């Protein structure tokens, strides 16, 4: 479902004398449907960079990244937009939403973007919020006023609202208490069970052990490593 082949990445800092930083070379990764692969490696090794390249958020310098049938490296913007809408979900560590939009609508948004009826989308959003222990009293409020842990759970609910065939999870269990952590891991297991291909970054070793089938150490993709 997700195929990363020989991908490299460099940043050119034009405003700092044109310094070119090569951060990755020869990255390889393959994730099958129903499989969860953890990216591991020291901080700064490029876990997030690789994940962002898969999402199309960072431009790969070379190589191919196939999600389903689409090569994200060469795809046109509108193809990536369609991919993100239908196929590829992403739970980042940060919640980025329009201020003042109620939490329920934030979570329902991915379904509305797919053209699902508003009632169905909201019902699904409410079910997820309830499961992640966000009290109904907060559903009408903007998540921007919430605590870090609550924002994280809203972000997860949003990421799981649509049943994406491929999912990228960046620290989904960070800053969660045991009960909520359990819920998130259950959500991941359910996604695997329905055949989703998942790439995750987990600092939480227990969580990694519970949901991940394999680990890929991105340190191996550092330019000096090979």
């Amino acid at each position, binding site marked *: 479902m997700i195929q990363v082949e020989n991908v490299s990445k460099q*940043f*050119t*800092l*034009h*405003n700092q004398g044109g310094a070119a930083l090569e951060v990755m070379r020869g990255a390889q990764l393959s994730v099958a449907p129903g499989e969860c692969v953890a990216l591991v490696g020291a901080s700064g090794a490029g876990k997030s960079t690789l994940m*962002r390249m898969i999402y*199309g*958020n*960072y*431009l790969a310098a070379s190589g191919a990244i196939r999600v389903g049938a689409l090569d994200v490296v060469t795809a046109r*913007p*509108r193809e*990536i*937009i369609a991919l993100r809408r239908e196929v590829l979900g992403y739970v980042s560590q940060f919640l*980025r939403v*329009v*201020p*003042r*939009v109620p939490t329920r609508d934030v979570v329902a948004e991915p379904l*509305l*973007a797919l053209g699902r009826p508003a009632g169905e989308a909201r019902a699904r959003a409410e079910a997820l919020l309830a499961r992640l222990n966000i009290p109904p009293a907060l559903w009408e409020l903007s998540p921007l006023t919430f605590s870090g842990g609550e924002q994280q759970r809203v972000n997860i609910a949003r990421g799981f609202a649509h049943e994406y065939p491929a999912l990228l999870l960046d620290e989904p269990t960070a800053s969660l208490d045991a009960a909520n952590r359990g819920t998130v891991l259950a959500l991941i297991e359910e996604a695997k069970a329905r055949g989703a291909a998942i790439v995750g970054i987990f600092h939480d070793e227990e969580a990694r052990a519970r949901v991940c089938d394999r680990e890929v150490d991105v340190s191996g993709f550092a330019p000096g490593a090979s």
Partner: protein
Amino acid sequence: MTPLLEVRDLTKRYGPRIGCADVTFELWPGEVLGIVGESGSGKSTLLSCLAGHLAPDTGSVVYDTRANGARDTLTMSEPERRMLGRTDWAFVHQNPRDGLRMNVSAGGNVGERLMAVGARHYGNIRATASDWLGRVEIADERIDDRPSAFSGGMQQRLQIARNLVTGPRLVFMDEPTGGLDVSVQARLLDLIRALVRDLGLSAIIVTHDLAVVRLLADRLMVMKSGRVVEEGLTDQVLDDPQHAYTQLLVSSVLHV
């Protein structure tokens, strides 16, 4: 599927100065394109050329018309272009005073485009106006008030209703949230987003506010000195900018 708008080598000069030069891009149905750049970068000139308010020196702007398929809007007759401008296109000005008739009631402002395409039943026109005021969150009891009695945010929402009432497929927006309080901005952004999504609109939004394009635009074009220096997926351009100017632009944003 075909592009809704195909722009090729669009150039506009003001004497020796360049307004915009060699702009080429496609806009597909349902896409929202952001155009960013600092003042004087040519983004407003480009928008005016696209919307037919300004005649470019060279290039073509091919639009997929409902009736006759792909047509170059620069060579079509003026009546056709103006008809397009008040039916299938919409233009939201930064200053609502430029886009509204300030001495005409809110209902009349919304109804004008309907009457322009031949609506002659007062009751139906008023009912449609009332429906649209509701969609942009303006209370029905304000239908007979003039825009001069409205707040800035309401005026901007009224301008949007007035523009969308004929069901256009392409919306041009020039700094739609400029000049508004941040709290009002947020509400307007949410409204525009929902309308674009629910109506399947395509939009071209000119702004210097990177936060606005991040929330509204699928794609981004960065302009400098009249030329497009970088384009791509909005979050990719903002998070992994390739061009020196874009990097400078992104790193210059203040974070609160």
